[in-house]
C-alpha cells in the first residue's frame, strides 16, 4: 500500500490499479519506446554528432582530423561571428520588447468595451497563419518600392531610399516584419491571460477611484504575470533563431549587416565548407540560448513573486 504521490493536486481517492503498482504495465513501455528511439536518432544523435564534429576541421565532405578546441578559439577572433551575434541580439532584444508592448496593448484594447471583438481578434491572428518567408517577400516590395514612393510624395527625404539598402537601417526592416508576424500569436496568448482576470476586481478598483493606469499596474499586469513570462521567454528564443525573415528581406545584407547566427551556420556549414567550424558556432549558440532562457526565467519569476 505504499503509494508514491504522483500528483498531490489531482482529485480523487489515492490507491488504485494504475497508481503505486510494483508491476509496471509492459504496454506503457511499448507506447513510448518507438518515440524514444526516433527522438534519440533524429534529435540526440545529431546533437552529439554536432558536438563531436565541432572538435574537428571537417569541411562537410572528405577527410577530417581532430583539432581540439581550435574552432572554439577561432570563434572568438572572428569578426563575422561577432557581427552575427551583435546583429542577432540587437534584433532579438528590440523585437521582443516591441512585440510584447504592442501585443499587450492590442490585447487590452481587444478585451475592452469595443464592438466586433471576434472579427478584430480574427484579423489580428492572420499573420500567424501565413508563411513568414512569403510575407517577407511582400514586405520587401513594401520597403523597397512603396515606402520610398510615399516618402517622396510627402517630401520625407530620409525615407526616399529603401531602408533595406542601408547597412544601418536594414535591421529595422527585419524588426518590423518580425513584430508584425509575431504579434499575432502573442496577442492571443495575452488575451487568454486577460480573460482569466475576474471583472469584479476592476469594478472594485473603479469604486475605489483607481485610474486606468493604476488598474493596469496593480491588477492587470500582476494577474497576467505568467503569460508575460511565457511570451518574453518564447519571443526572445524564437527571435534569436531568426532566419526566414532575413532570407526574404535582405539575404543577410547589405554586406553582412543583417546576417543572423542561424543564417551564418547555414551558409558556412552548407556552402562555405566550414562544417566543423560552424558546428562549434552552433554549440556556442546552444549554450548562449540555454543561459539566456534560464536567466530570463529566474528574473521574470522573481518579479512575478515580488508582486
Amino acid at each position, binding site marked *: 500500500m505504499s503509494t508514491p504521490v504522483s500528483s498531490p493536486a489531482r482529485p480523487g481517492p489515492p490507491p488504485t490499479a494504475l497508481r503505486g503498482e510494483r508491476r509496471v504495465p509492459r504496454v506503457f513501455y511499448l507506447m513510448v519506446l*518507438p518515440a524514444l528511439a526516433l527522438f534519440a536518432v*533524429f534529435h540526440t544523435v545529431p546533437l552529439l554528432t554536432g558536438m563531436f564534429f565541432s572538435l574537428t576541421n571537417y569541411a562537410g565532405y572528405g577527410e577530417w582530423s581532430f583539432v581540439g578546441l581550435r574552432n572554439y578559439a577561432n570563434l572568438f577572433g572572428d569578426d563575422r561571428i561577432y557581427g552575427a551575434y551583435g546583429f542577432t541580439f540587437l534584433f532579438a532584444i528590440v523585437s521582443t520588447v516591441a512585440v510584447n508592448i504592442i501585443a499587450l496593448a492590442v490585447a487590452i484594447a481587444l478585451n475592452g468595451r469595443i464592438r466586433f471583438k471576434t472579427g478584430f481578434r*480574427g484579423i489580428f491572428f492572420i499573420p500567424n*497563419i501565413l*508563411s513568414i518567408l512569403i510575407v517577407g517577400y511582400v514586405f520587401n516590395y513594401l520597403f523597397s518600392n512603396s515606402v520610398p514612393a510615399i516618402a517622396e510624395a510627402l517630401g520625407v527625404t530620409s525615407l526616399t531610399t529603401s531602408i533595406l539598402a542601408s547597412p544601418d537601417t536594414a535591421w529595422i526592416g527585419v524588426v518590423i516584419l518580425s513584430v508584425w508576424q509575431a504579434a499575432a500569436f502573442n496577442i492571443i496568448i495575452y488575451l487568454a491571460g486577460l480573460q482569466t482576470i475576474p471583472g469584479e476586481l476592476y469594478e472594485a478598483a473603479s469604486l475605489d477611484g483607481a485610474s486606468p493606469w493604476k488598474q493596469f499596474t496593480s491588477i492587470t499586469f500582476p494577474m497576467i504575470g505568467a503569460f508575460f513570462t511565457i511570451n518574453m521567454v518564447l519571443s526572445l528564443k524564437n527571435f534569436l533563431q531568426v532566419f526566414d525573415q532575413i532570407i526574404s528581406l535582405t539575404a543577410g545584407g547589405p554586406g553582412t549587416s543583417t546576417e543572423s547566427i542561424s543564417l551564418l551556420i547555414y551558409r558556412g556549414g552548407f556552402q562555405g565548407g566550414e562544417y566543423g567550424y*560552424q558546428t562549434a558556432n552552433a554549440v556556442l549558440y546552444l549554450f548562449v540560448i540555454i543561459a539566456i532562457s534560464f536567466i530570463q526565467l529566474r528574473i521574470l519569476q522573481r518579479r512575478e513573486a515580488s508582486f
Partner: protein
Amino acid sequence: MTATSSSAVRRVATDRPDGDDVVERAYRPDRRRVNWWLTALVAVCALTVLIPLYLTVVTALKTPDQLGGTGFGLPTTARWENFADAWTLTSFPRALLNTGLVTVGTVLLTLVTNSMVAYAIARNMHRRFFKGLYFYFIAALFVPFPIIMLPVVKQTAIFGLDNQLGLILLYTVYGLSFNIFVYVAYIRSIPLELEEAALTDGATTWTVFWRIIFPLLGPMNATVGILTCLWAWNDFMLPLVILSDPSAQTLPLAQFIFQGQFNTNYSVAFASYLMAMAPLLIVYLFAQRWVISGVMRGSSK
C-alpha cells in the same frame, strides 16, 4: 459520491468544445456601453495587418506597366493571366500537393503518436523512467534547430529520408517536446476512475487509451492539430535543408526557388504569393473562431 464528482470533472474535461463560452462570459459585462474611440483605434491597428494583404492582391492583378508608384493603387485592368503564369512557373499544383501531403501526414501522425506517448508518461510520472523521459523530451525545447541541422541533413540523406516522408517524420519527432508538455498537463487533469473501471471490466490499456482517453483529449487534439498544421504548412527551413529532389518542393521552398529565378516579375511573383497563402487563409476564414479558441486553450495549460 465519487461517481458524481468524477462525472463533474469529466464534464469539465469534455464539455469545452471551444473556449468561446468563457470568452462570451468575460465579454458580457462590457456590453453596456461601447467605447467607440477604442473601437476606431483597434480598427486602425487592424489596418496594419490588412495593408500587406491588400498590396498582395492588387499587385497580383496588375500588368507590369501598372507597377511603380506606391503600389497601392487599384489595377486599371486586371491581368488574370498572372495566376496562370505563376501556376506553371512555380509548379504550383505539385508544391501544393507536397505541402498538403506533408501537413496532413504530420498532423495525423502527431496526434496519434504524441498523445499516446504523453498518456504513457502522464500515468507513470511517479516512475523514474517515465519522469526522466518527460524531462528528456522537454529539455529539447531549449535546443535551437541550427545545432542539429547540419548533422541531421547528412543522416536523412543516408536513411533515404531526404523527401516528403522524412519531413513528416521529423516534424512529428521535433513536435514531441512541446506536445508532450501540453498533453501531459491535460491528461493529468482527467480523473483515473474511468480507466480503472474499464480495466476492472477486463479492458486492455490499449483499449482504454483509444476508446476512453483519446476521445477525451478532443480539445487538446484540436490545439495540437492546429499548431502542428500551421508549423508544417509554413515551415521553410526544414524543407530547405532536407529536401534534395526538386519535385519534392513545398510551397515556401518553391517560392524561394522561384524568387531566385524570376525576381523582377513582381506581378507574377505576387500572384504566386497569393496562391500560396490562399489555402490556409480560406480554411481560416471559416474556422477562425475554432482556431483561435484552440490556440488560447493551449496557452492556458
